[in-house]
């Protein structure tokens, strides 16, 4: 094993920006201010040997075998929302993309695009949250970059993360591995992240106790693989939600999927808010939920493994069928309707 040693974290933030301290163009200029930002904020937060080498890039030891590599950019508004922020999102988003490849997430990079005038205290809060998310997911943040754009040319902060993970399974986990008769399992209740972010936007005044489901998914995925479950396909349910994820899989695999609406876990607050706002939970983004498609004969065991790995609400919600034909929903009243890809952003209806 060539894993980076466990990270040595301190509970408090290493530097405290004075209130009112803000990002200046020089923070991205390569001079003393940028140096100070790296030395006092990023290095202590993400302390690990690769980062501390202070090199242009990280040099990492790998075993022979397959690696998974992915990247994602985060532009969420607002930056802080109940249950998470852009920092935890940026770490978990990339960790989860690696997990969906069946890989054990190992290393991340982080690129920050900061807007001139952005409060340094907010940046510290985001970095702190990234540090905690990385620790929870067991990944090391080994290289990074910071750029500053003029005031008005950004939206506070944008974060890009890329990640590398080690594929420890010999299975092919991809839509083309999906077989007719397979069971479709969702890892938990859907719709919380999208609604929590929507509720946190200042122009939308609805009070809710909803929190984002933002969470790392490597543990439940690896638990299934370590238990020897023959996973055929995995997909996290981010933009476009459960519906878009399954439609994409069905199209790529050339199969049909039938879902049972009554079996899909949706919490009461999500149902209530969705009814009120005219949104469909099937299409709402999640940041800590995935679907697993696997042989029907393994479904029960998979659910049990998932439950032990923190996905107590994992549920069987549908079945793969032989014909090509996209995704069909059997509604709660027993009728059937096709699910279609969402067009553009979901716009709330007016009454």
């Amino acid at each position, binding site marked *: 094993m060539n894993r980076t040693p466990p990270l040595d974290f301190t509970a408090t933030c290493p530097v405290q920006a004075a209130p009112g301290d803000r990002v200046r163009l020089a923070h991205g200029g390569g001079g003393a201010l940028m140096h100070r930002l790296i030395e006092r904020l990023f290095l202590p937060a993400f302390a690990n040997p690769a980062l501390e080498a202070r090199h242009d890039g990280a040099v990492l030891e790998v075993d022979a075998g397959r690696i998974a590599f992915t990247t994602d950019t985060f532009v969420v508004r607002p930056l802080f929302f109940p249950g998470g922020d852009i920092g935890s999102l940026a770490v978990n988003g990339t960790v989860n993309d690696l997990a969906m490849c069946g890989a054990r997430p190992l290393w991340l990079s982080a690129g920050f695009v900061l807007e001139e005038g952005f409060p340094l205290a907010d940046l510290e809060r985001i970095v702190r949250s990234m540090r905690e998310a990385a620790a929870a997911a067991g990944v090391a943040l080994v290289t990074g970059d910071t750029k500053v754009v003029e005031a008005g040319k950004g939206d506070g902060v944008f974060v890009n993360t890329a990640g590398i993970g080690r594929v420890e399974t010999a299975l092919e986990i991809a839509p083309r591995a999906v077989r007719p008769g397979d069971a479709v399992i969702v890892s938990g209740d859907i719709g919380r992240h999208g609604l929590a972010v929507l509720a946190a936007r200042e*122009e*939308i*005044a*609805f009070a809710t106790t909803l929190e984002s489901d933002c969470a790392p998914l490597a543990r439940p995925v690896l638990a299934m693989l370590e238990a020897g479950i023959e996973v055929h396909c995995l997909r996290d349910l981010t933009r476009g939600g459960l519906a878009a994820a399954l439609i994409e899989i069905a199209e790529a695999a050339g199969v049909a999927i039938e879902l049972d609406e009554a079996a899909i876990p949706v919490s*009461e607050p999500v*149902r*209530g808010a969705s*009814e009120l*706002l*005219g949104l469909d939970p099937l299409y709402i983004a999640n940041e800590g939920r995935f679907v697993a498609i696997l042989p029907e004969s393994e479904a029960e065991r998979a659910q049990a493994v998932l439950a032990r790995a923190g996905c107590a609400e994992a549920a069987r919600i549908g079945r793969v069928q032989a014909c090509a*034909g*996209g995704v069909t929903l059997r*509604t*709660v*009243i*027993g*009728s*059937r*309707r*096709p699910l*279609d890809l969402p*067009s*553009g952003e979901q*716009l*709330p*209806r*007016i*009454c």
Partner: protein
Amino acid sequence: MKYLDEYRDARAVEALAAAIRRTARRRWTIMEVCGGQTHAILRFGIDRLLPETVELIHGPGCPVCVTPPEAIDRAIAIARAPRAILASFGDMLRVPGSAGSLLDARAAGGDVRMVYSPLDALELARRNPSREVVFFAVGFETTAPATALAAKTALAEGIGNFSLLVAHVLVPPAIEAILSSEANRVQGFLAAGHVCTVMGFEEYEPLARRHRVPIVVTGFEPVDILEGVLLCVRQLEEGRAEVENQYLRAVRRRGNEAARALLAEVFQVVPRRWRGIGEIAASGLGLSPAYAALDAEARFAPAARPPADDARCIAGLVLKGARRPPACPSFGSACTPEHPLGAPMVSSEGACAAYYRYRRQPASAAEES
């Protein structure tokens, strides 16, 4: 979830569908007025539970669908004005005016904000005292009371940088226009439960009498809609033409009297052009003289092109219930939710969007044609 699950109960749905099958001996054509009902009918496949003798056709009750392009043009002109913030309900943003939508205007640099309530737009005005905040007030009697409350609050608090671009419309004149049309084939109506929650249903009684049509005030869940259809079919079979209230848990005969008083104070009834239908006398709400100071059209004098609907779009026929969306040559080809020619393809309450979303795939499209 309480108040929801019991109205989506598969056994109750089947029992009502069976009762409708038993009751309907002749052929009947019933219009559901409200786009919310259209959406539920397509989403749950309720029309497929009905016997062949009962045909549901979709009415004009989608608020963004009937807002005419020139009103959208005015909203876009305001969004482009210096210092202005144009606040709108979300599903209005994608609806095309004569040259682009509010989303296009936003992409071109206009300040367009999505709000859930006119009161949120008022809050925007409070927080941005150096800007002019204009709320694009569209919708039926359901959304008008919130607009009225924002207007009253703005005047009471002296919020000088808030105004309203009003395009509110009323349901009963639209029903009257449909019934008076020579091509009309609607024999009974499901009236919109939420509109009646505000307005009550007294004003529908003369309509039912004069045109000899049953009107059933109906809710929005599968059980509600099927019960509304059953009550309507029963009246038709028995030769009655009454106003009946299926949506008992929300609607009183006189509606919400506080909301009605507020509407009467802030608005006056005006003629209004409906998209695809044309002008209907006394079918809209405009600001009353006491609230004229809040009129955004007077403040901004936004230019609008002369009214012209896209010739490739049959929205007018769809909104009047004369054609179903798949009968339109542009449906699903030239006109999609990404590139809508007409408003019914935009809103989740629009009939074209509902058909596109729920009935487009080959297996089910075959049933439609």
